[in-house]
């Protein structure tokens, strides 16, 4: 690369180095774009999940059956007492009549004449929902507290099932976090490797420029511009790839989210995302190229000194 004490000349040199060598340039830009697109799709997914709320099925629940016959218990006071127990986030009342009507509607039970049963043999009940982040020990302690509440006849809760679910959920959270870290590391390491490969500096030229008194910044500039330009193109390509992939996957994910009661925004991220992403990628490319070329210059100087 020819040197360069003016920014315009450095930009010309960077352009020559990048788009002037399409066979070497585009495969690397494509590889960088794939890494960027993966990161961008992850970010789009996280944005569409906002506000991040656990679906109802993700909360640990227990069924609390009220004691006594119809009209014997102050259900409002009982509901209040249940909500006061630690780690209980909600206690939703299910009346005995509603429960019986629900049973009577179920296929196979409709012909049994359940609606005619008098008096209604079912108890009044509360579906108690615990805090989503409460661990098995905390939930079991809360269940024990619920059993002690006045006018509670029994509490139906399956601790083993919840322990299994909790363990699986914890593993899934760890894996997702690990996946995000691995993806971020893959982007940075992949781009660093691409920068090191792409920006193989001309050691003879660097040695010569150093000898002739070129300012270190002027030596680095074309390489930095080249890195920034490469990442800008890769980011633009990644935005396009992410848009296409997201458009293809969106109906499938939206359907899945609906099935599992997970919030999935129908809106695409705002347009400024693309601009901000390209700007950030350009800055990242410049920073990586600058670091790579500094290492190369230091190696050249040390080599010259030893030789």
């Amino acid at each position: 690369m020819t040197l360069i004490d003016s920014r315009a000349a450095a930009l010309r040199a960077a352009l020559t180095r990048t788009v002037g060598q399409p066979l070497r340039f585009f495969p690397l830009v494509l590889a960088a774009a794939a890494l960027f697109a993966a990161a961008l799709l992850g970010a789009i997914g996280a944005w569409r999940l906002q506000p991040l709320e656990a679906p109802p099925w993700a909360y640990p629940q227990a069924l609390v059956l009220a004691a006594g016959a119809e009209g014997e218990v102050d259900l409002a006071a009982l509901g209040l007492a249940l909500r006061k127990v630690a780690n209980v986030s909600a206690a939703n009342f299910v009346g005995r009549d509603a429960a019986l009507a629900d049973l009577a509607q179920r296929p196979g039970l409709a012909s049994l004449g359940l609606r005619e049963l008098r008096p209604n043999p079912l108890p009044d009940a509360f579906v108690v929902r615990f805090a989503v982040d409460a661990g098995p020990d905390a939930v079991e302690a809360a269940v024990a507290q619920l059993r002690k509440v006045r006018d509670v006849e029994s509490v139906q809760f399956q601790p083993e099932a919840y322990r299994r679910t909790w363990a699986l959920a914890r593993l899934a959270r760890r894996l997702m976090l690990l996946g995000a870290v691995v993806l971020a590391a893959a982007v940075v390491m992949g781009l660093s490797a691409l920068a090191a490969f792409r920006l193989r500096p001309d050691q003879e030229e660097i040695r010569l420029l150093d000898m002739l008194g070129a300012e270190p910044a002027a030596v680095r500039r074309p390489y930095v511009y080249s890195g920034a330009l490469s990442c800008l193109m890769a980011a633009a390509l990644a935005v396009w790839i992410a848009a296409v992939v997201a458009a293809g996957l969106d109906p499938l994910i939206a359907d899945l989210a609906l099935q599992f009661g997970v919030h999935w925004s129908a809106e695409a991220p705002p347009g400024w995302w693309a601009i901000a992403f390209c700007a950030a990628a350009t800055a990242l490319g410049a920073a990586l190229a600058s670091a790579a070329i500094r290492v190369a210059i230091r190696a050249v100087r040390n080599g010259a000194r030893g030789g």
Partner: protein
Amino acid sequence: MQDPRIEPQLSEAAAAVAVLELAGVEQRYGAFRPALVGVDILARRGDFLLVQGGGASGKSVLLRLMAGLEPPTAGTVRVAGEDLARLRPVARAHMRRSIGYLPPGGGLLLARSALENVAMAPWAAGATREEGVRRAQVALGLVGLDAERSARTPCSQLPSGERQCVALARALANRPALLLLDDLLAPFDDADAERILRLLDPFSEAGVTIVVTQRSAGAPLPVSPPWPVRARLLSLQDGKVGP
């Protein structure tokens, strides 16, 4: 910056200015025998120093230190009164622009044309593309090379003598105050060596301080033509400057 043309002769006051000063310079590389030990050199404007020594006597290391390409292990190297080791990288880079350095072998980019190789010196000093080319053409003319042919021919296709001329033209291109020419005459026959030294003489008379190294086997050779009569001989042996 000016073209590498020659200006009128020096006044006495100007000639008294110390351009290059080495004091107690020592250079070591790891546990090996020191490359230079206790070197003291003072060169004023217009001085012509001829450094003679055998292989591995420390000539090239001495010139690299003078060019500020590496700091000495001990002692100081001052150019125009500035301690090169204490200068910040940018200031050192600027200082190097006023030093014309010809490394051993010329240090050319062989795939590039002679013109481009020479123009790199002014470009490195911040000249525009056109200005760099213009100065390179002047410098190539000074060393006797055809600038038009030099623009077309990659250095790899030039004979060794012409390559050395290109490297010399590059060292002259920024009109340096200090010329450091390592093994300058190695690729030349006697006639060309005389021509090259005659070419340097007016620069020296105009105030450029010149240091040239020459490889010598055995005892130092006396300073005799084609070397200029006022050339000062420094003999270097095992990293020490001899009498």
